[in-house]
């Protein structure tokens, strides 16, 4: 057997301690994955939801539709024929269907419910299109303009595209901050730090070992997250996705420094866990890890922009699903490394070998 370097032996010791601790493993890997499955599952189903429309009586724009157009309809709409208008309207009010269509003379009448405005708008828009097509066909001349639509994002508005980078950011933040804080405090409490102080190793070796282990853990989390989201929920990565590696590395350093600071302040392991939770959980919400903050009030967005996780999430979204190149990670990297430098510096000042 080969003699390991002090740095390597400390890393191996930390890594073994991490892997053998079922609780830590659960919180840093299994727990965020549960969220991924939860969010991924929910939003994938919603994306496939169809609009249900009930047709009462003759509606020529629908009835005269050529067969291929009719089939194409089937993808987003189901049209059901019913006799009673009142019964159909009642179903609409109850929210069981999304629209009722009738024809009075040349007027195509759409009944909609204001309870679900998104679906109401979809139904109206779609029928307005149908009427245009029918009008144009009535003129017996070929259409002059045609509308082509192209979405900016890859495929659909699949939530998994948003959820994977954001939850990964949260998971990495959590394990880096908790790992560093707990490690530091428990080694100080059990006296191991003092013992290490008497060994012929550099102080920085202890810190570097922690950095190394956290980086490996973060990359492992990324591999599991991206692999699972791709395999199960149809995540589609853009070409620049490997840029998550430098981004995650910078993010890990930033959250490590938060953890180190927490570990330097806390006297007990329980205190360290509490402090890390107190910082990481609100930060995850405010950084859009669980839901987008585009609709949030201005002041909340300002707070959000002061948090390192927000910039990690932003950068990861850009390179993983928005197909942006290296320039997209420059600013996030600078901000994350800045956090790491400042907080790490404070943590080093407050560092104690002893309780």
């Amino acid at each position, binding site marked *: 057997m080969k*003699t390991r370097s002090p740095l390597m032996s400390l890393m191996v010791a930390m890594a073994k301690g991490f892997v053998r601790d079922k609780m830590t493993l659960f919180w840093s890997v299994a727990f965020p994955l549960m969220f991924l499955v939860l969010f991924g599952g929910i939003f994938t189903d919603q994306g496939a939801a169809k609009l249900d429309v009930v047709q009462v009586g003759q509606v020529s724009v629908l009835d005269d539709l050529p067969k291929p157009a009719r089939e194409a309809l089937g993808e987003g709409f189901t049209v059901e024929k019913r006799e009673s208008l009142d019964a159909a309207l009642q179903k609409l009010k109850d929210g069981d269907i999304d629209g009722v269509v009738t024809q009075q003379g040349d007027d195509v009448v759409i009944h909609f419910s204001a309870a679900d405005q998104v679906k109401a708008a979809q139904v109206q828009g779609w029928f307005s299109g149908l009427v245009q097509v029918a009008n144009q066909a009535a003129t017996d001349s070929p259409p002059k303009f045609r509308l082509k639509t192209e979405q900016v994002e890859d495929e659909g508005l699949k939530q998994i595209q948003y959820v994977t980078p954001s939850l990964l950011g949260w998971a990495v933040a959590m394990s880096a901050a908790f790992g560093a804080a707990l490690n530091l405090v428990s080694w100080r409490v*059990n006296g*191991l730090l003092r013992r290490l102080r008497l060994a*012929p190793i550099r102080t920085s070796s202890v810190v570097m070992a922690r950095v190394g282990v956290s980086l490996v853990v973060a990359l492992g989390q990324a591999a599991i997250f991206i692999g699972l989201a791709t395999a199960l929920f149809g995540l589609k990565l853009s070409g620049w996705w490997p840029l998550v590696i430098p981004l995650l590395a910078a993010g890990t350093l930033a959250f490590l420094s938060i953890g180190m600071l927490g570990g330097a302040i806390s006297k007990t392991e329980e205190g360290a866990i509490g402090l890390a939770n107190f910082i990481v959980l609100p930060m995850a919400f405010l950084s859009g890890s669980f839901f987008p903050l585009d609709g949030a009030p201005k002041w909340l967005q300002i707070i959000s922009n002061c948090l390192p996780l927000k910039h990690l999430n932003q950068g990861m979204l850009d390179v993983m699903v928005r197909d942006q190149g290296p320039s997209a990670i420059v600013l996030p990297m600078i901000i994350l490394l800045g956090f790491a430098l400042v907080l790490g510096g404070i943590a080093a000042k407050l560092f104690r070998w*002893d309780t």
Partner: protein
Amino acid sequence: MGASINVEGLVMTYGSLRAVDDISFAVGPGEFFGLLGPNGAGKTTTLETVEGLRKATAGRVDIDGFDPWKRQPELQRRIGVQLQASSFFERLTAREQLSTFAALYGIGPERADELLEQVGLVEKAGDPVEKLSGGQKQRLSIACALVHDPEVLFLDEPTAALDPQSRRNLWDFLQGLNDSGRTVVLTTHYMEEAETLCDRVAIIDHGRILELDTPDALIRGLDVPTRISLEPEAIGLDEARALPGALDVQQTAGSVVIETREPGPLLAELASRDALAGLAVSKGTLEDVFLSRTGREYRES
């Protein structure tokens, strides 16, 4: 092999408390030196200052010419330290603890098995440290201090919290530690431990050294009478009081205790009367030394 230690005028204050109050001593190469005193006497603070874990408020500490407060690899390779708390890497096995510590000193993992053998933990090699008993943890932590075969070994209360049987087992092991000429410094609050293991003992109380000598010399220097105890049936109380040289006679549960400064004639007299049933003779102990110097009863807790 074997380092020498010099401590001169060591003072450690915490606020208004003088935890260590002008302590001086020297330990020679290969010596087994004990710091003995009740809890809170200042022995651990003294030891930790010598190890380099604390900076002295005043005074000087020197190990083979090095100042231990300055972290220097040349010195760190010479000293082995077992800390009071059992300081281990969480969830690592006994062997992994040793091979990790060995690597910190640039020593290969094969050293771990040597040490496991030496401290009798071969069967526990694959057990996580959390599953070891108190005595096994103590032995492992001493083994961790020995990975780099240091010239001086510091042991802080190595047998604290052990049952009497485990303590005696550990003494056997500790006695061999300075055979190779290694210097050993230990703190203990067990008088018996200091008497058994140490070449010289410093008795510390309230941050000061009360006495410093070999255990035998300390006890000899004591002006305490010899205690002779017998079965109650061997001799009557009045008869005992009339014995030549008898100073004080007491009846305790299960024995008659006679104190004397001339045990020879008294024992001869007892023998001639064939009254030696249950005979036990005891001279003073370090506890008596403590008692005579402080006027306080020594309590091992």
